[in-house]
């Protein structure tokens, strides 16, 4: 399974980003090979609809699940249509969240917010 996590930097010691749609990078973690790669988020500079564009990138990268502190409703609609699972982060540590995922201890993300539409949230 391939999992995407929004992160602040291209390093394994980086923190989870507060925003799904406007995060600078995604960490793509493969639970089978245990390998990680980083993906640039081209949606970060979007005037609007960043969540939709970011979710499209995730779908196109054949991701099976995302782990994120929060997610807007438009992005969530794209991800859910593509049958991508949404997990909620337990804290800001990338390692902790990957461990929790491997242990099956990550909660499902339930509270989808109405979107920030360019006003704060990050």
């Amino acid at each position: 399974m391939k999992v995407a996590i929004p992160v602040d930097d291209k390093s394994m010691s980086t923190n989870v980003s507060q925003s799904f749609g406007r995060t600078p990078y995604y960490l793509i973690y493969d639970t089978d090979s245990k390998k990680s790669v980083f993906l640039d988020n081209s949606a970060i500079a979007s005037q609007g609809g960043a969540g939709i564009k970011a979710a499209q990138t995730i779908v196109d990268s054949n991701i099976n699940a995302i782990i994120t502190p929060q997610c807007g409703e438009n992005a969530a609609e794209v991800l859910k249509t593509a049958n991508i699972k949404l997990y909620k982060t337990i804290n800001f540590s990338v390692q902790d969240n990957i461990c929790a995922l491997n242990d099956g201890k990550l909660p499902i993300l339930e509270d989808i917010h109405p979107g920030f539409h360019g006003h704060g949230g990050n």
Partner: protein
Amino acid sequence: MKVAVLSGKGGTGKTLVSVNLASVAKESLYIDCDVEEPNGHLFFKPKNYASESIEVKIPFSDEKLCSGCRKCVEFCKFNALAFIINKVIVFDNVCHSCGGCILLCPEQAFAEKDKLIGKVQYGVSENVTVMTGVLNPGESSGVPIIKKLLQDIVSGPELIIIDCPPGSACIVMESIKDADYCILVAEPTLFGVHNLNLVYELVKLFKKPHGVILNKCVEGENPAEKFCLEKDIKVIGKIPFDGGLGTLNSNALISVRENKKYHDLFASILQVVTKEGSYETVTNP
């Protein structure tokens, strides 16, 4: 003469200026283009005689015709489209109805449906005809409503006051497009100068004759006035930071209809606007 009233941020006094200038004229048309939060009608309390729904076209894709080329998804500047499991999804609330996806689609897979986004109201308040644009909450753009307001301008009143939305974005550009003169309302603070500069840049870009009304003036230094001096912008009026004016305004009363002092204040500003506007129209056709 069409006079647009604008400012870089909300709460500087656009509606105060617009409503009072419209009321102090013998006869006028007041158009509320601040469609996200129109509140001119709270002052005018117009007797509405008509209302019209405003609809826009939203595209939808026929998955049987779609080849999955994604030209539409890549084109959409607003990211209103996504291509998921061989299907184009359109986000109605993000779509700006530009029609680009329909034009670009090589398979002609798109058709359009109507979507209600708001309304335009027509009313009368004594000497003022009042037109109000209302955008429903959550919609992406008020531009179609402003287009309708400005295209429907009733002939008759010589003075037309366009109460603009705050800022300098698309909806403001649409509101001032056909204006003969622009009034920039400014607050006497450094933040006020920053906001004034936004709309000043905009009216310069549009080559519109313009002047500044300094609102909430107090004793002492006024950074907005200093800015006008530096940039050689004409100050066409000063409104004092005045408890009486504030009280009338916060009670949704039109000051020029209540008090002779304020009547004279706005009458003298209107005189300058009329002179500046017609003078500029002659020299800058």
